[in-house]
């Protein structure tokens, strides 16, 4: 039994010595030159899924009976749509070559040359705030409704409960 344990220990030490003594490219640290883009896109999908679950969660609960919560759900749907929009927008952004953006001297704002559908899509899809801002204001009006529903500004009296 002791001999077996001794042999195992020796084999382990030999393996460790081989690993440490004969270094070879291990690729333990990977570079992230392109992972940022993919990570951002995956985060958009995660965000989208969370918003869909949030909206569905409200819809399936008793909260759906109250207008402020319906506004919160509307905000979540809009943000989900915004994520889809931005997700597509990032791909289109990659597809549009730098040469399509015309930076003329003396002009602060560049122009875009409509060479193909990509440039037109870029022009439209870049206005994603048209979805994000209404989403946030849906949340704001929802929150305001919730605040009003529980009774105004100041502290509550014993015996209450939201």
């Amino acid at each position, binding site marked *: 039994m002791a001999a077996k344990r001794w042999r195992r220990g020796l084999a382990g030490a030999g393996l460790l010595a081989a690993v440490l003594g004969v270094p070879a490219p291990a690729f333990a640290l990977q570079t992230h030159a392109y992972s*940022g883009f993919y990570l951002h896109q995956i985060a958009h999908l995660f965000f989208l899924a969370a918003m869909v679950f949030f909206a569905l969660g409200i819809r399936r609960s008793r909260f759906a009976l109250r207008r402020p919560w319906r506004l919160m759900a509307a905000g979540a749907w809009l943000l989900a749509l915004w994520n889809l929009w931005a997700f597509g927008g990032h791909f289109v952004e990659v597809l549009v070559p730098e040469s399509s953006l015309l930076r003329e001297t003396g002009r602060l704002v560049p*122009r875009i040359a409509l060479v193909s559908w990509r440039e037109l899509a870029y*022009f439209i899809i870049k*206005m994603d*705030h048209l979805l994000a801002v209404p989403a*946030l204001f849906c*949340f704001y009006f929802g929150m305001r409704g919730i605040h009003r529903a529980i009774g105004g500004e100041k502290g509550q009296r014993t015996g209450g*409960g939201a």
Partner: protein
Amino acid sequence: MTTLSLLPVWLIDIIGSALMIVGSALCLRLAYRILARDEEDPLATYLVWFCGALFAFALSRAIGHIVKHLLVFAGRPDLWQRLSPVSGSINTLTFVVIASVTLFFQRMQAIIHRMARDRDKIERTGRELLDLNRALESTVFERTRVEMALRVAHDIRNPAAIIGGLVRRMAQEADQAPATRGERLALVREQVERLEELVGRFESISPGEPGAFVPLDLGGLAEECVALLTPEAAEKGVVLSATLSPALLLFQGNERLMKIAVMHLIRNSIEACQRGEAIRLTTELAAGGVLLRIEDNGPGIPAERLGRILSPTAAIDRRGTGLGLSYVKQIIEDHRGELRIGSQPGKGTTVEVMLPTHLGVLRERELR
């Protein structure tokens, strides 16, 4: 070749970014206000987290976009090239945070549902406890009444039998000597006096029987409560004052219980009021009773809460003052009085305690 200016895109981007910061900041502000109303409410806590994540998302994104445009306008797009990976990474992080917080919503709903169920259970149990308490009180009262009746019967039996025997013998022996008659009449008188003394003893104990009720002055009681609670109100910055009737406002009551009830009502107002607000106590003689009024200009009670404020669970407060307003209500009702609460959200609350002045009123009310 057709070209389009990117000015509308840039304008929407800058204005939209600013609006996102404003919108999300307003959401966060409201979330904190909701939380301030009840710091232990899980939904309010969740809304702060949700709006906090939303604000972080809007801020990181908007700042990134605005800085980008500013640097391009300033002729330093190269600087933006260096900053954009950092800005993008922070933005990605906020996506993950807001998504994670949002996914917790399902769990939050389960917690809220469970709390509502537990609250109903506590409310039912509270009601059962109050019913049990009342049943016990009535049992004790009934037992005391029966014991008293038995004691009365026992104590009266002997003198009644002696009087009866003596009077019967006097009737049978009509021709007896005046001296003997005089002795027997003296014995009858002696027993009658014993009976009178017995009746007097019962008369003296009967008013004090239900819970040691004694005549109390409502003004004095209110004054004492105000004096005790003034430091507490001052510490919170609430002005506590009393306008008491110059007349003695007497009622039958248990001093200890009535003090507990009045102090609870005042303390309740202090807790509800904010710094600079005021509470005023007034006492007056009303039709058939004495009235104590506690008015405050605090936040008031929302209509939906006012309806159930006297229920046992609604009264369980964070400071652990027990059964709260339902307990106060029971004390007032045990004094055959009435507790009335009126409120206008944003304007204030008025609590009125009406107590009958004498036992006659009690009996009239019992008959009604």
